[in-house]
């Protein structure tokens, strides 16, 4: 017990204190109302993609989103990836806004883009775009209400959204933020801690269940200067509640790496036991974390430049469609995915983003029998940091995840059959 208190005390001193007299501002949001058809833009932006409607009959590109082609009146409008290339035709810097969210963050740089294939877009303009008219590229991002918005960025190379103080709002940049990684004992958890440290996190609390069990790498973790190991067992409500009481009011980003994976087909000996263990960590663990930490994150969603901003779950591509050799695990991740949707809606009410990662098989002991390509824990951790720095909420890192996603999007029933027939 004394050891626990010492750890928590150390963590608390290291977190910067703020002036307790100042009131923590309440979160405000950009307007979230969208027509159903406009949510097609959000669906693509959630994956980090720009898609616009294209007429299947006359190929005209459409914007704003609509029900019927503006040229030939066809109703067969398909969402298709778009390169976003065009010209910034005019721009303004807005110094007056009607909604509180924008008013609190004035001014905003806004422009009109003419895409090369003819559509006109109202966009945010990145600070690094110089002069009008000029060539630009349009990207999609998610605003703090979780809805898609379009951004004009320089035409070549990748653009750091965080470099623009306004467009940083579209990201969950881990730099200078205080982060809880719920399990640091796994290879993934340890890779995530290192990647977040490299990305400039101010401090990282690393949860450790059953500290008497020494695990490879946990000593090395203690060398990461920002990291502080704290006791956390997501299967124990009291443990989650205690940690939330101690550090919950300081956490800006929660990364849930807690994972239980027992490679069990549903007919295997011990399948029920495996399923219960997996559900207790993967599903109930998430529920316990949500109950204790979500209200605290929401309360600090507007707390200055280092506000509470994101919740990340490491799920599995098996959550999309059950992979029978990992039948119980797939089911627990599907349950967690469903729960995360409810949690996402709750968190967005305060502007806190929930990001789900759907990795394919990872190069660890539980996916031992899976054939390559497999995702290294470092690659997964890098994808996680990139998602925080960018502007998306669903991440499918690696070739297998991308392959399964494509198959799922094209024909979910076909994927179910393929997996049940053993075709991975």
């Amino acid at each position, binding site marked *: 017990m004394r050891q626990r208190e010492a750890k928590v005390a150390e963590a608390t001193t290291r977190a910067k204190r703020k002036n307790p007299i100042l009131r923590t501002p309440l979160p405000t949001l*950009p*307007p979230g*109302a*969208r*027509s159903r058809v*406009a949510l097609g833009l959000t669906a693509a932006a959630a994956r980090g993609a720009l898609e616009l409607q294209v007429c299947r009959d006359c190929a005209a590109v459409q*914007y*704003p*989103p609509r029900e019927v082609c*503006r040229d030939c009146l066809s109703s067969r409008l398909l969402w298709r990836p778009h390169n976003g290339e065009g*010209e910034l*035709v*005019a*721009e*303004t*810097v*807005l*110094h*007056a*806004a*009607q*909604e509180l*969210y*924008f008013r609190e963050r004035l001014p*905003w740089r*806004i*422009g*009109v883009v*003419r895409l090369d294939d*003819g559509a*006109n*877009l*109202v*966009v*945010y303009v990145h600070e690094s775009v110089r002069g*009008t008219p000029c060539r630009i590229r349009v990207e999609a991002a998610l*605003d703090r*209400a979780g*809805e898609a*918005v379009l951004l004009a960025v320089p035409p070549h190379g990748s653009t750091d959204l965080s470099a623009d103080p306004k467009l940083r709002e579209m990201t969950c940049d881990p730099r200078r933020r205080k982060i809880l990684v719920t399990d640091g004992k796994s290879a993934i958890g340890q890779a995530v801690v290192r990647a977040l440290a490299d990305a400039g996190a101010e401090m990282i609390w690393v949860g450790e269940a059953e500290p008497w069990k020494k695990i490879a790498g946990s000593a090395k973790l203690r060398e990461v200067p920002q990291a502080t190991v704290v006791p956390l067992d997501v299967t124990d409500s009291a443990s989650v509640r205690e940690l939330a009481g101690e550090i919950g009011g300081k956490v800006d980003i929660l990364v849930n790496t807690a994972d239980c994976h027992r490679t069990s087909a549903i007919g295997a000996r011990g399948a029920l036991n495996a399923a219960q263990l997996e559900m207790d960590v993967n599903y109930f663990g998430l529920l316990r974390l949500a109950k204790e930490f979500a209200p605290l994150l929401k309360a600090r969603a507007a707390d200055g430049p280092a506000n509470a901003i994101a919740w990340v779950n490491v799920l599995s591509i098996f959550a999309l469609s059950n992979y029978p050799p990992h039948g119980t695990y797939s089911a627990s991740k599907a349950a967690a995915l469903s729960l995360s949707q409810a949690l996402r809606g709750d968190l967005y009410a305060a502007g806190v983003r929930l990001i789900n990662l759907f990795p394919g098989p990872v190069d660890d002991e539980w996916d031992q029998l899976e054939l390559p390509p497999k995702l290294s824990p470092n690659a997964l951790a890098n994808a996680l940091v990139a998602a925080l720095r960018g502007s998306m909420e669903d991440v499918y890192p690696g070739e297998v995840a991308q392959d399964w996603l494509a198959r799922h999007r094209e024909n979910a029933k076909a994927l179910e059959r393929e997996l049940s027939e053993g075709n991975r």
Partner: protein
Amino acid sequence: MARGGYGDVVLAAPVTVPYVRYSIRGAHWFLGRALAQLLAAAKIPKQRVDGLAVASFTLAPDTAVGLTQHLGLTLRWLDNIPMGGASAVVSIRRAARAVQNGDAEIVACIGGDTNHTDSFRRNTSAFSQFAQDAVYPYGSGGPNTSFALLTSYYMRTYGARRANFGKLCIAQRNNALKNPLALFKKPLTLDQYLNARLVAEPLRLFDCVMPCAGAEGFLVMRETTARDLGLPFARLLAAIERHNAFPDDPIQFRGGWAMDRDELFAQAALKPADINFVEVYDDYPVINVLQFEDLGFCGKGEGPDFIRANTFETDGTFPCNTSGGQLSAGQAGAAGGHLGAVEAIRQLTGQTLGAPVANARYGLVSGFGMINYDRGICSGAVVLAAD
């Protein structure tokens, strides 16, 4: 087939329900006052009005239909004109054909809105599906954003300066100072204009209309009816309207008038130089310039020179927005789309509240409305003549 003329259609009884910055009343109150003032001006009982055209943004959940029962009107002709700044021009076109062909005898055209402290935000946030989905989430600037973008494009492309727009705003203010109903009562200097608070670059405070509450109205009838009632009237010579003109332009640098102005002047049997004064839609000064150009008073891009060459005041050259326009009288929602028509009728019938334009024989009223996404969709114009 050539369009038929408007024959003996006339406009009479211009009325204004005085504007206020904010009101605790509903739109029904302002529209009801407008109708009462119309009846008083024409000295007719309510039963004589058998047609009604209504424009309002704040009448919801009602439309013109609900208003008939609210105001106790029994009508044989009714139109709801949700076209904002183009609403009066469109109402005139509709009502003219109705009275010309006997579908109605006296049509009341009214436009008006209330303005509560939060109504402007609520109206702009759900103005249209495209605005809600693809403009409002970008800073919630409302029309300020859209007009800032097209003003900056116009300035860059045609070399206009802020001082050019300033001259228009100051001239309108000078006209407004003689209009007792204008909300702005103090002169505007170029220095004040140029150094006012930034709203959306390059727009500053005095480039932007001030939303308020109020209503405007007039009656459309045949000349014989007006004579029987002893009402001074203006004749309708010509009218055009156009919606979603030039959809492929990358940004709005011209409006539908450019498509239809030849027809307008041909129908009126006049040239632009014959017009004695204009009432153009003016929520931001750049749109005045587009109307000068697209209606043929000067060429495209010649706006800056045209501004230098004229005074726009009632006693000067090219009198424009002779009651002060919306920029100096206030923008009472859809009443803003009627203010120019009402002032033109006043000028042509010798009933001005402010300064008359000497020997005003022909007036042009132009409308522009509804920034549905990135540009104004509705445009139109009418030419009116003194009796």
